């Protein structure tokens, strides 16, 4: 069972049938340092995420995985190669307010309440605030009672829930998550993983999650793409066929641990 899940070549990072919602073709990113030296963050990365698929991009810190996400969000552009979202430039999706994003830093407005933070995308897009939608999302992330709380009054986990609700409020076609639970303690982080699994089961949005936590990647994703090294390259792609819904019971499952151990070993090798 485990053996069938492994695809040997990075080329198979492209899913078989559905057209890709997110796609990188030979994407290379170089950063310019001082005195005209450059450092290559990503070297010719191919990656495709199908419609409605949840892909986790797993790698050690500094392997360029956040750069992949930033290019897909239109925040960075590749030095060479192509980055496509729904077959077009990321900017098109952004212009249509159809992209949701959440970072490790919650990036909430400190002066606004949880409600106003979740309502922000409506205001930025110049649309009337759909109060029902905002309230529905706040209850989806389990914050019904905290609509009027300001970020500083919320715990770290709650802030991330607000950030995720904000990312979802405009019913985006694509959800990009950059280590959204990276700043949380292990227990809260695991609880948030199950929360996200539940929310995602409810919405089924094309999602790319960037993380360095192997358990998190395996718990949440349909596929895990392992990125290693300086410069970052796709080292391995793992299809996760574990049944959904995934809950706490899964973390005691032998197969789950198999996959986690194998991916951890891959990351370890990559680090040497």
């Amino acid at each position: 069972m485990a053996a069938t899940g492994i695809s040997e070549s990075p080329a198979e990072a492209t899913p078989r049938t559905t057209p890709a919602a997110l796609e990188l073709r030979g994407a290379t990113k170089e950063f310019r340092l001082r005195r005209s030296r450059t450092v290559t963050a990503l070297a010719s990365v191919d990656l495709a995420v199908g419609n409605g698929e949840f892909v986790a991009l797993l790698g050690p810190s500094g392997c360029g995985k956040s750069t992949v996400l930033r290019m897909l969000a239109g925040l960075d552009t590749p030095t060479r190669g192509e980055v496509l979202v729904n077959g077009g430039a990321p900017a098109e999706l952004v212009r249509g307010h159809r992209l949701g994003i959440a970072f490790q830093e919650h990036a909430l407005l400190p002066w606004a309440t949880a409600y106003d933070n979740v309502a922000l995308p409506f205001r930025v897009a110049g649309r009337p605030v759909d109060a029902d939608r905002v309230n529905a999302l706040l209850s989806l992330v389990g914050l019904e009672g905290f609509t009027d709380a300001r970020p500083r009054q919320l715990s770290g986990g709650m802030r991330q829930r607000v950030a995720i609700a904000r990312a979802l409020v405009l019913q985006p076609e694509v959800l990009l998550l950059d280590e959204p639970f990276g700043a949380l303690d292990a227990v809260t982080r695991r609880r948030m993983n199950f929360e996200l699994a539940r929310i995602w089961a409810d919405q089924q949005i094309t999602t790319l999650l960037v993380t360095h936590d192997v358990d998190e990647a395996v718990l949440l994703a349909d596929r895990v793409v392992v990125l290693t090294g300086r410069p970052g390259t796709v080292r391995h792609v793992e299809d996760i066929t574990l049944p959904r819904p995934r809950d706490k019971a899964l973390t005691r499952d032998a197969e789950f641990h198999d996959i986690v151990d194998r991916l951890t070993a891959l990351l370890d090798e990559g680090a040497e």
Partner: protein
Amino acid sequence: MSRSESAVVEGPSAGQHPVGPGDGTAPRADAEDGGKQPRRALLHTLSRTLSRLLSRYWTVLALVAAWAVWVRTRQLNQIVAPTPAAVFGDVLGHPGAYLPDLGWTLLNAAVGLALGLVLGVTGALLVWASPLLSGLMTPMALIMRSVPVVAMIPVIARVVGFGITAVLTVTTVVSFFPVFVMAGSGLRAAPAATRDVFTVLAATRLTRLRLLLLPHAVPAVLVGLRLTASTAVLSAMLAEYLLGTHGLGLLFARSVTFMDPARAWGTALVATVVSVLCFVGARAAERLGSARFS
């Protein structure tokens, strides 16, 4: 100037310690003997407040005491240096002699502060809007930061005319630069991740300014105001003194001329107190603002 913030930070640093020695023992003592409880608690609070005031203001009290001793031991003529008692007596005994001029000085400072605020924020917005303007204005901001504006009072008076216009120009220019600099850095201070969220939401420049950058700049602008509040009062007074327009500065000049040292020192005392109060007020506004906006 931009550093004066930390010198006078008091209350919260003392109050924020979750377990101070005093805070821990007070409730326990109260619980033990019920009957004397309120009086003991009151005494306790009183002595604590007193010792806190003493630990903070002993230097100021020592300064006043040294002044009294100095006048007495040197047997100084009252014209050279009046005793603290004479000065406090004059201020408390004839408040009417000070009030109109105090009003003028406060008005000069407040109008200058308001104009400086408006111009400073406008300037910062212009610089934000145009990188070209930003590059061109940087040297000016730098030069003005280190040019002694108050020393230019004679020049300013020559150019804009003597009288209240010159005083207002001085207080405006003095207030402009800290506000301009702080508002500018406030507009640039929004965290990168939040800016990225706005980029991904395809926010227009105006939306970004309205919903993200301006609220972010509020605490910084309030810091700028705190830095200038007392300076505005002091430079108003200096300009009034030099140019002979109504206000504490003129009152001081006249008292010196007419050999009324108690009044002259009283004017200095009033100005000191008012300048400290302006600082305290501006700091309170800053705390409120930063609690609201961060």
